[in-house]
């Protein structure tokens, strides 16, 4: 369970989040929608612990524990997973090397031993097959020369391997064609479980046809301005964000 209480964040003297409150229960899939510049991506970075953001006030509790004092790696092994909007390319680091390092970091934190190489390869291959990730892609340097769809699938592969309790999907649908969107969504849906929650950040309702949310929150000017069920997303698709932009100006 993730609770965000009165979160106030700025970057380079510019206020981005203005007292944001949000609770995502275990097993819940919450969607955050909002116009560009409403602070959606900032929220995902702040939860994951990116350095550039200054948290002026508020708390982020993961299963009751405040994560704001933790480094990004500590949050990751505590269960936070951010699927990046723009996954980074790391020349020289083979995808397999990277996956193994990340998985072992998680296992160490859980007090489990490191996986043997055959076991590790078996696990990766099983998940990769589900996500239609070809084996040669895993041998290449991480994300280098990958298409937009391949990068997003690689993110979901990591999510599946690391077994986080709280997953953030930051505009995962951007740059995906219909087929890639289907594969990615199926991958996410397969990971839904009663003890894992999701925060799905998106500008468009389209993704929510594939990953059906339990709750939908509208974000504007750094705050949640309206919450509701999945029907709220459909309403937004029909009417746009115009109503909420006005509230921004008010």
């Amino acid at each position, binding site marked *: 369970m993730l609770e965000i209480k009165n979160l106030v964040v700025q970057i380079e003297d510019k206020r981005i989040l203005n007292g944001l409150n949000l609770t995502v229960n275990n097993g819940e899939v919450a969607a955050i929608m909002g116009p560009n510049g409403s602070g959606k991506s900032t929220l995902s970075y702040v939860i994951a612990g990116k350095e550039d953001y200054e948290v002026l006030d508020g708390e982020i509790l993961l299963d009751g524990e405040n994560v704001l004092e933790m480094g*990004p*790696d500590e949050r990751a092994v505590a269960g936070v997973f951010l699927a990046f909007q723009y996954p980074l390319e790391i020349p*020289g680091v083979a995808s397999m090397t990277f996956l193994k390092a990340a998985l072992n970091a998680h296992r160490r934190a859980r007090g489990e031993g490191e996986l043997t190489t055959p076991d590790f390869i078996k696990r990766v291959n099983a998940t990769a097959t589900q996500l239609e990730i070809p084996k040669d892609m895993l041998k290449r340097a991480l994300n280098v020369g990958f298409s937009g769809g391949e990068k997003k699938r690689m993110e979901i592969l990591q999510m599946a391997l690391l077994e986080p309790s709280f997953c953030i999907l930051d505009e995962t649908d951007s740059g995906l064609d219909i087929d890639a969107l289907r594969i990615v969504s199926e991958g996410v849906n397969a990971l839904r479980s009663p003890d894992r929650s999701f925060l799905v950040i998106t500008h468009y309702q389209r993704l929510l046809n594939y990953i059906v949310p339990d709750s939908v929150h509208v974000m504007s000017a750094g705050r949640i301005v309206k919450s509701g069920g999945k029907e709220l997303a459909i309403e937004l698709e029909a009417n746009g964000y115009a109503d909420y932009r006005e509230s921004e100006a008010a």
Partner: protein
Amino acid sequence: MAEIKLMKTPAETGLAQAYETVKTTLPGDAQSRAQAFELFTKNGLPHRRVEEFKYTDLRALMREAAPFAGTPSADEAKAALQDTKALSGVKAIQVPFVNGHFVRDAVDLGGLPEGVEIVPLAEALASGHEWLAKLSPVSWANQNPVYQLNTTFMADGVMLRISGEVDTLIHLRFVTASASAVATATRVLVLVEDGASVTLLESHESTDGANHQPNDVVEMIAGDRTNVRHVRLNAEGDKALALSTLALKVGAEAEFFSLNVVAGAATSRHQVFGVLNGENTKVRINGTTMLKGGQHADSTLVVEHAAPHCESRELFKTVIDGEATGVFQGKIIVPHHAQKTDGRMMSAALLLSDGGTMNNKPELEIFADDVQCAHGATCGQLDEDLMFYLMARGLPKKEAESLMVQAFLGEAIEFVDNQDVHDALVNVLEGWLRARA
């Protein structure tokens, strides 16, 4: 005979005295030594106002000249070689030098694989061996003071001839073992006959705690259609001032690869002087340098495209921790007639700490119009976004750093095709990272 003029620094005076002492006992043609030393004395030890040594002020870095080491006894040589570790896991014919002298007992000169001939240099110099005519294949290297000193003082080494395809690796092992500081000047000449191929390894080791001053020159003449892979590891002791030169002349339709890995010495300068002497030749020269503490490492490279239609690639990676200083000076020269030259040179440096310094000087000197030449240089710290990405996947900061540094340095090592050598180098790299963590 050269007239020795009074020199300024104690090191220069020491070198002059050393020359006076050894000039009658060193083997071979005294005239070429005298000429080399005369050239050296003209300008003395190079300092920062000498353009080629702008970033490596030898006059300041070399306070005193260490005495030249004598020939080790059989037992001393044996003991010295037992302690060496560099590239020890790699199966190869060992050609060891201890304190600048070829350890003849360690090599079965009569039982070498087909296509490999070795002639001890001291004997060759004394007897006037016919191969000696091939020494100094790169004429302009004679202008270089480090090279001049080696020519003046070279006491021993080997001449190595390769013909045909030689599959066995050959490992030239340079060891300086002495409790007190000594200087050495080893010279190796490698003749690779037309159509031959070989993999050569070099490792350079010296005892910690002493201000050793090795000055090694490896010269290579690779004929037409040759394929040479050359990997050099600097694992010198922590106080060493290590100078080295690779002088290279490559014929037509050949492939040549050289990698220098710097993991040791207090101060080092490795010079590569290459001449591409025949058409359609491909050369790749890489460097991987890891520095910490107060280390200083200089990679200096001059590649002359003396023939048209050649390709050269240079990739140098430097990681700097502590208060260390890295230097890269690279120059591609393309004369008028070397049309269709394709040259690319890249130097990238990572500064891991606040106290480090990186000096880059990548140069192009081009006189032919139908060429494609480029060079690049970057300098910076680890990319913050990448670090965040790795940490968001659970990797602790140090581990994320290590992974990135390894990937960064690894790019220059990737070109080593022999798996054992590659793994041995990765071990060196990992060892450096572990020591850092």
